[in-house]
């Protein structure tokens, strides 16, 4: 099974893992369901209902019973199962436990990769996201700058200039660069998610949560709200604009209130 490697994005990790789960899940599901239906069919009685009754006659069937299993009797105390079943039960339980535990441990290594990358320092675009009813505000590198007036916020720029179809307050990010998001909310609970990049995290008033992504293609994408947040929830989306690195650098440095040193790492690497 593929393991997470440095440089992979959340979308890559999700894609791999989802595929593994889907294949195994389909196999297991098909096997178990077929097995169930097969047995229910195989062991059906062909004997019809007893005269004037709505079910078979137990006494009659008892005469031809080749199986040594315990059959329920009226007014019984249900102790003892007769032969069979027990060993098989634990075998299949063991197999399913092995399968599930294996899958989860495997997925956990991926989780650690995702969390570590999200927690890392430097070499990333840091954006604070603040949800409100019903939209998103972005602020670039807020934590790195001591003076509030030095930060770039989505209210200060117009992303439409970069892409005619983008909303003016779109999130603008460079291609191929890790983008770390610190997400919170101004009013109620939202959830910020960009499905294309498999980045998603809760936007909770009073709390800050983190996620990250790396876009491999330029273009216009969508961020959605994934938690019911009021009347505008069904329409609560925002644009995410991915541009070439150089274009991002030019755009960023041309804005007022920006500090070019924040993105020095990009120029070094490009």
């Amino acid at each position, binding site marked *: 099974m593929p393991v997470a490697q440095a440089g992979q994005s*959340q979308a890559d990790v*999700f894609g791999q*893992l*989802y595929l593994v789960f889907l294949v195994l899940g389909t196999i297991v599901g098909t096997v*178990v*369901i077929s*097995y*169930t239906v097969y047995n229910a069919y195989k*062991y*059906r*009685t062909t004997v019809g209902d007893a005269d004037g009754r*709505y*079910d078979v*006659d*137990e006494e009659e*069937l008892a005469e031809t019973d080749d*199986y040594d*299993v*315990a*059959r*329920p*009797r009226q*007014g019984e*105390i*249900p102790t*003892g*199962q007769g032969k*069979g*079943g027990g060993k*098989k*039960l634990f075998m*299949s*339980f063991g197999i399913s436990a092995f399968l*599930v*535990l294996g*899958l*989860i441990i495997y*997925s*956990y290594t991926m*989780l650690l990769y*995702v969390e570590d990358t999200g927690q890392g320092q430097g070499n990333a675009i840091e954006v604070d996201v603040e949800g409100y009813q019903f939209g998103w505000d972005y602020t670039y590198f807020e934590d790195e700058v001591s003076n509030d007036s030095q930060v770039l916020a989505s209210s200060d720029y117009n992303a439409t200039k970069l892409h005619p179809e983008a909303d003016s307050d779109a999130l603008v990010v460079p291609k191929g660069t890790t983008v770390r998001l610190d997400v919170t909310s101004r009013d*109620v*609970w939202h*959830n910020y*998610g960009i499905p294309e990049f*498999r980045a*998603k*995290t*809760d936007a*909770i*008033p*009073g709390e*800050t949560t983190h996620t990250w992504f790396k876009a491999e293609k330029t273009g216009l994408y969508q961020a959605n709200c*994934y938690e*019911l947040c*009021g*009347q*505008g*929830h*069904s329409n609560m989306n925002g644009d995410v604009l991915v541009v070439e690195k150089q274009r991002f650098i030019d755009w960023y440095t041309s804005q007022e209130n920006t500090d070019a040193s924040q993105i020095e790492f990009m120029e070094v690497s490009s």
Partner: protein
Amino acid sequence: MSEHLPPKSSVKRWLVTTNHKDIGILYIITSLFFLIFGGILAFMIRVQMWNSGTVILSELGYNQVVTAHGLLMVFWFLSPFAFGLANYLVPLQIGADDLAFPRINAMSYWLYLFSGVILGISFFQGSTLPTGWTLYAPLNLPAFIPSVAELGAFSGILALAVFVASVTLGSVNFLTTMYRMRADGLRMRDVPLFSISILLTVWMMLFAFTALLAAILLLSFDHIFAGSAGSGFFGSSEGGSLLWTHLFWFFGHPEVYIVFFPALGAMAEIVQTFSGRRLVGRKWFIIAMALVAIQSFIVWMHHMFLTSINLPIKTVMMVTTIGISLPFDLMIFALIYTMIKGRVRWKTPFLFVLGAILLFILGGITGVFLGAIVLDYSFRGTYWVVAHFHYVMASGAVALIGGIYYWYPKITGKMYNEFLGKVHFAAAFVGFNLLYFPMFVVWETPRRWFHYEAGFTIWHQAASVGAFVFGASFLIMFYNLVASLYSDRVVDESPWAYTGSAEWSVSSPPPEGNFPGKPSFATGKLNFLDGAATDGGEADAKTDGGVATAADAIEQEADHTSWWPVILCTTGLITAVGISGLEESYFIWPFVFAIPFYIAFVGLRGASKDGFGVVHGLYLLLAGPLLAAFLLLFNLHHGIEAGFGQANTYFWVTLVGIISGVGALVGMGFESFFAPEPELAEQWPFEGVDNTKLGMWVFLSSDIVLFGAFIGSYIFMRLRAGWQDWWHIAHENGLAEHAVLPGLINTYILLASSFTVVLALAYAKRGDKLKTLAFLSATFVGGCLFLVNKGIEWVEYYFHFGWVFDSGPASVTYYLTTGLHAVHVVIGMLILLFLIARASRGAYWSEGETAHTVEYFGLYWHFVDIVWLFLFPLFYIL
């Protein structure tokens, strides 16, 4: 007193009955009504989803519909549907005549029905809750609910509160019954699987729903005191939002199993019967269920993987979550292997259960996807989740529908139409999968959105068609169930072959007293022992920890009717509707005014019941001045004329509701209602504890969770704010001085009152009436002193320091937790008044009951004392 039940054709029968079989039927019918209600809302969702952005509902309307659909299906359909069956079947399966507390059982039903009615009313108060069934904070607060919707939203919250009351009473009742009233020789492990599943369900209910109650009480505070509470409890930026999710999901995850377990029990029974084979690995099946029930309380944060909780706790929750899925594998395999070497008959109940197993396998596998945190990150808030839990929940519903077909002949004495049953199954199964499978395909649709990508349209339309087929299939069922009542397909004890549990050994429907004789398994199989009455009366010497009941109990016949449950619950309905629109400044007054009325009612009713005594005169004399005093206080607050003149209708509704409510409470308290305890019964592990005492302890155990959730919330908020900064922050917010001494004094007072109760008990046991009364009265005085001291403290903090509700997390947790405690003290004092009135007239002495009654009360009072022993350090010292 013993009055026989009116015939089933009379309406009165269904209002006064306390018989578990009648109440079971009422539950089933009512829950099917709520199924239709919730189903219609589901249709509205599917119509709205026909095309992206189709609008038949406004945005607010859509949010209401998704919320009410979820609440109705989970709370008002699934659980009560299962509990209808449980009410009917559990006593039959364990060999009991009825539940331990029949009147309380009736109350459970009426509270359930009326809580649903309140939710229905909320639609007509402008709007019901528009917050999703999870009611995430702070969207659930008045500040974020459109003003047009506030009244109805609060009604929705109150409906939940009333529902929880119903559930808690039911849990106490079922636990007591199942532990204390099993037929002789029926060990707990031999109890039929459906009843076992109910036992585990009520255990989870007892604790999980109490946690929900705590959350709802705190939320109600935020709604009532929206003005002076500011951001309130859950609006607090110091973790209020996150705290709600903790409390909600601490309830919410066990709730999944609360809903599913009865279905699992029904599945086990039906697979056994229709495979003609005892469940394979029965013991392990039960152990697996018990493990799940316990573990369900330590997985809740898997609903919170994307919140700000830390990675270590996420890991723990991931492990426990995966751990909890494994016992289910075992249970499902046990069901499958039971079919092997079976005599499988594909009757309708079996088909439904087979279908349920298949749906559950799919729901389970897609659930493992969600257990992998990395995948969960992407699935969160999408239709993957919607599809997954519908597969699981509907698997439960489908199994219970199978249960209805299975037990229909038992309950009605008639066989349903097999052909129509199979048609129903085919339509339901196809319809269901057509409805929910496409949701896995288009899982990227954000949950609770009605806008989606154009490419998804065809799949959503398939789902909508499936919804129609699935819904329509139920019309076949309703027709079948009703028409079959009038058929000539009469059945005897057991229409099915290979039935084992006791309900199949009695006629269909079972006789009023359930069994033709005293059921006993002492010989290794079910026998009905001779004996005129079904309750008590056996001279059999072989009692194992049999309970000493009153000597004359043997001749007395059990009661089966009472008007008080329905009357009392109706007053509860009126009060709750009133509260929904009560203005903040009027909030406490109806309850305050009700106190003198209560005292007067106890005096009046006591005088007519027990014969007039000095104590009744005292009560009547006390009630008048007390009411006058309260009116005076009201005058200070509002001015009598202006206050009453400007009070809105809801104020008067509340007042009428609560005053008639205390009247009904007193009426019920004075009613003699005889529910016998079996003299010969299997009572492990509670031999030698009588029913009422066990009931009291069960209730107290849930009350531990209620206070625990309040205290836990306090600790959470304090940790979040910085444990040692707490008082510092409080001082900054206006708490001029926080004194420890008042807390210490109140500790002494409460300890002393505990001491006097225990002395009262000691003297009651000796039959010393005078001293008993003296010490009970001393306890009452202790309660008064405690409240006065507490009141001084509150007035000092609130008015002199200006440290109001809104003064930060320290103030809101302080007022609410000590307030909840004070309410417990007040309730204890009101019970004391009742007790003193009755004991002083000798009501209990002749029956030797005084000591018992004082003991039960003492348990409650000591518990309230113990709570204080922890509030004192947490809110005063540390």
